[in-house]
Structure formats: C-alpha cells, structure tokens
C-alpha cells in the first residue's frame, strides 16, 4: 500500500520561495499568476494492508517528523 503526503506551508505563512517562482513566471511572460505556494510531496511504501490504520499511522508520522506543524499543514492520501 502506498501513502502520499502533501506538506504545505500554512495559510498566512509567507512563502519566499513561492514568491520567487511567481516573479520568475511573470518574467517568462505567464501573466495572471496571482499567487504561488511551494510545498513537498512524500511517498511512502507501506507494509500495512488496512487503509484506515495505515492512514492513522501516517498521520502520526506527519506530526512527529514529516511536517513541522508550527508552520506547515499536511494531507494524507492512501493510494
């Protein structure tokens, strides 16, 4: 079973890298990009076979390591 974790900066936390990407897109002529937020995707290969317990386990992983919940939020997707 695979799990996919999306980690993003929380709303309201300034994302200097996203802002730089937005500016670069403007320079390339892509107009109308009003905001860019950059995050990361983490894919996990799990031995678990039960989706619900796997999801709960991955949530714990997020809280303990994969995300810094001071500034980041995450979503867990079982695929």
């Amino acid at each position, binding site marked *: 079973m695979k799990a996919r974790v999306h980690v993003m900066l929380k709303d309201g*936390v*300034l994302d*200097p*890298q996203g802002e*730089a990407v937005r500016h670069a897109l403007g320079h390339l002529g892509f107009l109308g990009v009003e905001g860019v937020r950059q995050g990361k995707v983490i894919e996990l290969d799990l031995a678990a076979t039960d989706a619900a317990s796997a999801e709960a386990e991955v949530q714990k992983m997020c809280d*303990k*390591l*994969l995300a*810094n919940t*001071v*500034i980041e939020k995450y979503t867990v997707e079982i695929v």
Partner: protein
Amino acid sequence: MKAAVITFPGSNCDRDLAVGFEKAGAQVIKVWHKETELPDGIDVIGVPGGFSYGDYLRCGAIASRSPVGQAIADFAARGGYVLGICNGFQILTEMGLLPGALMRNASLKYICKPVALTVASANSPYTESYGAGAQVTFPIAHHDGNYQIDPEGLAALKAEDRVAFRYVDNPNGSVDDIAGVLSENRRVLGMMPHPERAIEPAQGGADGAALFRALSGIMASA
C-alpha cells in the same frame, strides 16, 4: 563548567563552539549524535551550527529526532542549560524546546557576514554581562534564518522578555528582527548569529567571548 558539544553528521561549528567554551574555562566533552546518554556532570550542552544530516527534510528536523536528541530534551526538562547556535537553533525549535521556526531567508540568499545585534534581554545567564540595549557584532552564516512565530507566540515572547537578541538591520526577514530567543526558564538559548566565531580579535571581533564567560560565571557561583 563542564560542557558537552554535540556533533551530528554535517555539523561544522562544533570545534569552534568547543573552543568558545574552553576559552571561558570550561572542560568540553564532544558527544557523537548516536549517543543516547550524556556524560555525567554536564552543566551545559552546546548544539553547534552546520548542516546536520544535509538539511534533509527541513533544517534540523532529522537531528532533532536523533538518538542524542532525546537526551538533550531530557536534560533541558531537568533544568539544564542548552545553547543552540545557527543549525543548533533550528534543531532546538524542531525539538520544540524553543517556540517558532526558522524559514528560508526572505532574500532567498545564503548570507555570510558580520551583523550588528542589540541585546534585547539581559535577563539570562548568557546575556546578563552585556546589559540590555548593548550592541554587539557577531557573524551570521545561514540560508534559513528567517525566524517566524504566530502573533500569539510573539506576544508571549515579548511579554515574558524572552527575545535575547535583535538584528539592528534585519538581514533575513525575521519577524520583529528576532535573532535569538530564550526558553521559559531562560536556560535554553537559540540564536542564528555565531558568538563562537567572535571570541578573538583575530576573528574580526571578540564580542562573543562575554557570552561564554557569563555562562561560566553562573556555573562557578551555582
């Protein structure tokens, strides 16, 4: 004073930090990151700068969960003194020993230069000899030193006088110009600038020596 300086894979300021403590009269024991226990009789732990674990995942994230990380947390919980500099500051915030987080510099650039700081609080074993409002110059060398904390957290830091240092000319976008913060019991200090790189005039300035001397003085009188 007996100090433990932690070395992670990728630490590069551990020697300088050890010299900083030694110059103030401390006996220094280097501790490898795989240790689960600290040497007996330690008064203070130094968590040095560098790029622990290659800054993988987030700066300081892996180090904060390493075997020695739990020993540092337990030591702090018992009221131990912990000084985290640069990557060490990032590690202490990732451990939750200090509030807030260090994000990418607002300029997105790695910045390496001496900067002027104001001693924002002299009410700590690290800063008392400077006096509040004193100006000191320490080098900075970081890519992720942009200190951020939510408005409630910032209000609490200010109300409790827990901002130890502020930048005179904010180099990295940190909220409220914050360069270093103290724990609630004022014994854990995390800061991005490097006092251990300013302990000899030959380094371009010796403002940092007083921080280690002050700490040593506290230990001697304790």
